């Protein structure tokens, strides 16, 4: 996958499908499809939804979502970062709390970090199908 992704968008619900469409373009270009493509799109959507719902809830104005994607052909790594309030418990959460569990379930590796300077970084890794041995 040569066309990596580097997106910065306003943290808004309307931009969640925008991010998904951008990632879909990346997957299409790399011929990633079926369940793996669906899993990547679901994970990215959940990560961005978490940012929109939680990251800037105490901020005067919505911040940004930063999305990067890169691949070495064997694995796809997508990072979703915000500069919001970081990992904090929320007893008034509007959702089911399934976002991170879903990401963990569909990705091969997931890391969630507080970031120096504020915010949260969610990194998701997906193994891509091997295609250079004729097996796929």
């Amino acid at each position, binding site marked *: 996958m040569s066309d990596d992704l580097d997106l910065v968008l306003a943290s808004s*619900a*309307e931009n*969640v*499908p925008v991010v*998904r469409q951008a990632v879909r373009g990346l997957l299409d270009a790399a011929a990633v499809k*079926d*369940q793996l493509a*669906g*899993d990547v*799109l*679901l994970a990215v*959507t*959940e990560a961005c*939804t978490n940012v*929109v*719902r939680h990251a800037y809830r105490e901020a005067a104005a919505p911040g940004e979502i930063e999305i990067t994607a890169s691949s070495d052909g064997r694995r796809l790594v997508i990072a979703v970062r915000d500069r919001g309030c970081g990992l904090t418990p929320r007893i008034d959460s*509007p*959702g*089911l709390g*399934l*976002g991170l*569990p*879903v990401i963990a*379930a*569909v990705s091969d590796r997931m890391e969630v970090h507080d970031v120096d300077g504020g915010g949260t970084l969610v990194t998701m890794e997906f193994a891509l199908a091997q295609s250079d041995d004729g097996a796929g």
Partner: protein
Amino acid sequence: MVVALAGEHDLSSAEALRESLVEAARSPGMVVDLDMAEFVDSSILGVLVQAFRDARESGRGFVLVMGDQTPAPVRRVVSLTRLDQVLPTLPDRQAALAAALMPTAPVDSE
């Protein structure tokens, strides 16, 4: 009443769906058909769970339509989150409508 989701749904359409389901809840039974939905995420599942809770508390039926004909990404997220073990689910719309219209006693969620 049947509410059929078509296309992709996420946080950007969750509020509109919630409003549609509130409107649909005025009928005796509600069916949410996922057969034409191509993508749903956990924010949409949250709306469905809330609609189910509201229906149960008011003694109205709520049934989800989902089966082999439902697009795979939708079936996958429902299965991953085990929502099909929480919400009444049938593979056929007519059967779901019949089930949703069966009288039920109100149930307190808490």
